[in-house]
């Protein structure tokens, strides 16, 4: 396959950026999107040009590092991560636009790499359960109902990639935050911190400068892990419940 790529190039956070055009040849339909970028980067390196910086790690759809907006869609045209997207989803001669996640809370570090530390701070603010460590607890000490385990697992699938923020017209982090709130809220181990968790995580999310939810639903469409839009509804319910129970600070 022969392709024309238009890629966002930006030297660092402060530098102005712009789209640069590259032609690549010899792409096989079985290559992943990242392997296609590797092919381009090998050539750029040989030619003495700066390779295109992009985030990646596992390349098997489980780490959440890869983060490319391809032709205006977070992770591209298939419902998967960019590393699991294959070139057979494109046609010979296509022009493909590649851009970084766009959000005030995700500043561009370089080219297609953005800083997603805002997500880490949201998790730090409440995305945990406090447990005594030391001796391992008896496995059956806390029974978990099957339905709760299933719901927790569905939400625990979030890999923190940030595609939901990138796809949302408001750059909102509601889907990501709700995945963690619902994951831990469904389990008995998460019950003691149920109220403070949702209040603190939403407050941190707001403090990071993410937008609000307008129920456009683009996040759930883009999410490679299928976190549903109703996850946000459930978090709203949790937040309203918690704000009635916890005294205002």
């Amino acid at each position, binding site marked *: 396959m022969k392709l024309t790529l*238009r890629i*966002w190039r930006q030297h660092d956070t402060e530098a102005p950026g712009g*789209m640069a055009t590259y032609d690549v040849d010899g792409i096989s339909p079985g290559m992943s999107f990242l392997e296609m970028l590797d092919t381009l980067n090998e050539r750029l390196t040989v030619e003495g040009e700066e390779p295109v910086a992009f985030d990646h790690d596992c390349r098997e759809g489980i780490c959440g590092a890869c983060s490319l*907006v391809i*032709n*205006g*869609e977070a992770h591209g045209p298939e419902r998967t991560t960019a590393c699991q997207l294959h070139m057979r989803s494109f046609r010979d001669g296509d022009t493909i*636009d590649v*851009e970084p996640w*766009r*959000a*005030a*809370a995700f500043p561009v570090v370089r080219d297609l790499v953005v800083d997603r530390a805002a997500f880490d701070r949201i998790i730090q603010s409440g995305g945990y359960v406090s447990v005594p460590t030391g001796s391992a607890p008896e496995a059956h000490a806390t029974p978990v109902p099957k339905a709760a385990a299933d719901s927790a697992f569905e939400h625990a699938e979030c890999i923190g990639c940030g595609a939901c923020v990138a796809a949302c*017209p*408001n*750059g*909102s982090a509601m889907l990501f935050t709700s995945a963690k709130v619902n994951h831990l809220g469904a389990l008995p181990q998460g019950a003691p911190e149920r109220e403070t968790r949702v*209040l*603190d995580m*939403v*407050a*941190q*999310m*707001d*403090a990071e*400068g*993410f*937008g*609000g*939810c*307008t*129920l*456009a*639903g*683009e996040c759930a*469409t883009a999410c490679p892990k299928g976190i*549903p*839009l*109703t996850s*946000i*509804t*459930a*978090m*709203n*319910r*949790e*937040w*309203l*419940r918690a*704000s009635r129970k*916890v005294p*205002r*600070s």
Partner: protein
Amino acid sequence: MARTVWGSTVGKKAVMAVSGLVMLLYLVVHMFGNLKIFFGPGTFDSYAHWLRTLGEPFLHYEWALWIIRVGLVVAVVAHGVAAYQLSRRDLRSRPVGYVHTKARSSYATRTMRWGGVILALFIVWHLLDLTTGTVQRGFVPGHPYHNVVAAFHDWWNNAIYIVAMLALGLHVRHGFWSAAQTLGAGSATRNRVLKGTANALALVLTAGFVAVPVGVMTGLVS
């Protein structure tokens, strides 16, 4: 950190949802009342008079009406201010946009902001037209039937009302469903019913309101 309802995006959205639903409830009642115009001047004008004596003798003349008006002003202001503040925040959260843009959400979803502004302007026009009569030649206080017929004699006023009611239908279509999610009432099993209800409400409201100017235009009401 802000943990108040108004200080949080989730809480502020809940204020929008509740104020929106208050206005929606009012609009359903309002539309129903408007349709009495098809039963002639006697029915319509006495209904308007009854609105003023509502709650008597416990309430004084027109008090019930004023209580409703105050409630509506509070709802409109809360809704508008929350919409403005949340929208500004949403726009700020993506200072650099995408080069390759793609519109995927529905038309109703994308027009909430401008549709809301159209509705706000319409509310002002509607009050000046049929409540105070400021912008209407031949307005006679206390004779609503006559005033409605007079108002819809001008084709351009019909156009204003019809466009505004189409905007209302779109706003309610996304708004009702959206409010249910904001208030935590939606779920995977309930959302089909909620979407259906939103569409039905939008359709009934728009058709019910538009029926009056169309009735005058076609001579059914004169």
